[in-house]
């Protein structure tokens, strides 16, 4: 999943009424975020915390893939997408959960199917050294996309 794709996903989510911020967490890192800068440095810690809850649930054979942490004013909703990355959303308590759920399911499917970015130019014959670099890069990206869904 390219940077642009990640931002597109987050933009789509925050366009819903009731979602103020969203971010993508994977491997102890925030890959993209619309949270305000004041909270940015807390996000990876929050991601680690939530990831541990998912891991603990899975360790006792519970297949939970959605967590709602209800705060005073808002709810932090996190989805585990493709057993791979976390989608964290700050939402109001009255949000339409079905709308968010279906959007996340569509994102999940889309990342699974179209994880690899399309080749830039399949028609022109590539220069060998450049190609091997690009392929290597694509293979790494592809592996990540396939294995980690990104």
């Amino acid at each position: 999943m390219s940077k642009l794709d990640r931002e597109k996903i987050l933009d789509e989510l925050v366009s819903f009424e009731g979602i103020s911020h969203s971010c993508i967490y994977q491997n102890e890192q925030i890959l993209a975020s619309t949270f305000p800068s004041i909270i940015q440095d807390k996000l990876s810690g929050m991601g680690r915390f939530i990831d541990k809850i998912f891991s603990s649930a899975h360790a006792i054979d519970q297949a939970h893939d959605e967590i709602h942490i209800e705060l005073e004013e808002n709810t932090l909703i996190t989805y585990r997408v493709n057993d791979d990355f976390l989608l964290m959303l700050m939402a109001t308590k009255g949000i339409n959960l079905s709308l968010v759920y279906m959007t996340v399911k569509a994102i999940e499917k889309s990342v699974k199917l179209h994880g690899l970015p399309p080749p830039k130019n399949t028609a022109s014959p590539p220069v060998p050294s450049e190609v091997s670099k690009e392929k290597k890069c694509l293979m790494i990206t592809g592996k990540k996309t396939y294995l980690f869904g990104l």
Partner: protein
Amino acid sequence: MEEDVIDQIMQIKQIKGFIQTDTEGEDVASTIEDEQLAHFMRFLVGYAPVFEKTAELGPIRSIILTSNKNNNLGVFIGKEHSLGVLFARGCSIKKLFSQIKAYLNKLSIGDA
């Protein structure tokens, strides 16, 4: 009074079990037979303050986990007691939780 409220919560059709713990994570009452699930709920209650410290977003009222394969579960964090609830998947979380909270307001759990 507490027993009455818990009985009322257990009367809610979708509720499959509950565990009530004190501030030290000790069981006050429980109907959850799966010991691993009970441990997990106690873990969530104990883990909530860690998140509060990390996130600095204020106190956590509840944590809910949902699944398409297992029963859903939630913990309501209170000052003196916390309540873990196991409930059927597919039911309306909002509706169910507003029902539970209405009862919890009678106890020292939850203030929503």
